């Protein structure tokens, strides 16, 4: 079983458009939506949830104001500025370290478990299996939830003898991306020929090189700035990352999204044949 992660550095480059199309084109893949902060894959694949797992993040402090004498020790020791002037815990701010509870002389503080999100095993309208999740707002445990989604995907793939896990990754180059990339066989970076696209591509390539993960690059909207597209090609070459696809600026992805379809289901034209060609190249690299 192979694992392919589709990432982008910068958000909004068309990562989910590509992943969802690959999901349709692959015969036997399980999809893992690891963009748990802003999961969008379900909007295209319309999953039916088969089972649901609660995900607990770090606990959150809670102060019993009956017992609290307002001595101020907790406030003084909290390094995350999570206790306000009324001696209430700002739960968004609290990192659950437990220091306040430890220093409180009146035993007024307890640590409460906190459901930070949910992970799901689903079957989509196309019969494909999907592992996905929803992280509560303001939560800080996306790396851990990504690990849970990936575990679910691997289990589903094993049970169903799938030969590929397609991972839709989060934007950025932080710990969420690292949690997405660890142990994958190949990364496909979807970028665009813009000054910020190229900047973030460089950071993404640094991450994949650092972890020794072979990388491929897809240039979306390449015709918006062909000169910059050439710069991307040069940069990718210097990182040994092959360009596997160049997609033109096109309204099809948005139109398809509005009717809740993947582009390869929605249309059949040069845009979609570009995606199909890209998929064959990726398949070849993965030796599927």
């Amino acid at each position, binding site marked *: 079983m192979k694992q392919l992660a589709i990432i982008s*550095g*910068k*958000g*909004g*480059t068309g990562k*989910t458009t590509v992943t969802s199309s690959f999901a349709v084109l692959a015969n036997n893949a399980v999809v893992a939506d690891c963009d748990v*902060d*802003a999961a*969008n894959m379900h*909007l295209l694949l319309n999953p039916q949830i088969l089972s649901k797992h609660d995900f607990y993040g*770090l*606990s959150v402090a809670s102060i019993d104001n009956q017992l609290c004498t307002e001595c101020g020790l907790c406030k003084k*020791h909290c*390094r*995350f*500025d999570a206790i306000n002037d009324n001696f209430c815990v700002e739960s*968004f*701010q609290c*990192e*659950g*370290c*437990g*220091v306040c509870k*430890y*220093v409180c002389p009146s035993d007024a503080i307890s640590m409460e478990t906190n459901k930070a999100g949910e992970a799901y095993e689903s079957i989509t309208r196309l019969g494909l299996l999907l592992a996905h999740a929803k*992280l509560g*707002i*303001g*939560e*800080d445990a*996306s*790396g851990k939830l990504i690990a849970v989604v990936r575990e679910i995907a691997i289990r589903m793939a094993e049970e169903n003898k799938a030969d590929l896990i397609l991972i839709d990754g989060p*934007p*950025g*180059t*932080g*710990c969420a*991306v*690292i949690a997405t990339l660890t142990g994958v066989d190949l990364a496909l970076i979807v970028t*665009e020929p*813009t*000054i*910020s*696209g190229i*900047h*973030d591509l460089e*950071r993404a390539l*640094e*991450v994949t090189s*650092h972890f020794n993960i072979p990388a491929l690059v897809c240039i979306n*909207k390449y015709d*918006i*700035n062909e000169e*910059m597209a050439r710069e991307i090609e040069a940069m990718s070459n210097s990182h040994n990352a092959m360009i596997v696809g160049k997609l033109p*600026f096109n309204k099809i992805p*948005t*139109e398809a*999204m*509005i009717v*809740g379809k993947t582009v390869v289901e929605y249309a059949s034209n040069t845009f979609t044949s570009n995606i199909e060609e890209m998929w064959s190249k990726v398949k070849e690299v993965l030796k599927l």
Partner: protein
Amino acid sequence: MKIAVASGKGGTGKTTVAVNLALSLQDIQLLDCDVEEPNANLFLQKSVDRVEDVSILVPQIDDDLCNCCGDCVAFCQYNALAALPNKVMVFESLCHGCGGCKLVCPEKAITETGRNIGYIEKSSGNGLDFYHGILCIGDAMASPLIQRLKCYADENKTIILDAPPGTACPMITTLKDVDYCILVTEPTPFGLHDLKLAVEVVEKMSIPAGIIINQDAEGYSEVEEFCKSKNIPIILRIPYDRRIAEMYSKGIPFAEELPGWKEKFREMYEQIKRIIE
């Protein structure tokens, strides 16, 4: 006055809005809080100076004093400490710097030392004070860096904060204590889905908000219906326009080139001021 520019989803035009707004006004401070991808300066092209290396405190264990009781390991909520038979190991990248292990150590074997998480750069001139934070690649501690960056806020100016995408901790850290939040979205199902999450955040934090629809086009009116149902005003629409996309690709703020846009951004700003007052 502090105005944050945020969006539930990346790539909706948050930085474009923050930069064009900053360039349309006078006496502005712009803080790029998207420390994983600080892109605002790609559009401003300012020469920057490093003003600070940012670190968080992590424990250092004196092996001579440590008797391996394991109290610190039991206390740490982030698995940043591990007990070996004759030694306690620190995994610095997992440490949130809470200081708890030092407090609980009965042998006083723990002191603290800095671990670098990133740095802050600034530039000024032309009526625009600009700061950004750059997080070390792969580091998980975006929030402490953003907090540090926000310490440079100059309350005498109008402060614009370019927030990180999403609705996780770094976005919340950016939004804390702002007077207004501009949410940038696109008229698509993805845009709407992520806008709803962002609206949930501003509602929970009781921050007044307005919405900018970027790449505005016919065909999907659900975003507008949602804004209406939530009573959140649409304060600006930026059309779907290939010229804007091309300028963006070259790093040119479109308000500098397309006539009338600076006025539009100024009007929007006046509208925000009226709402806050």
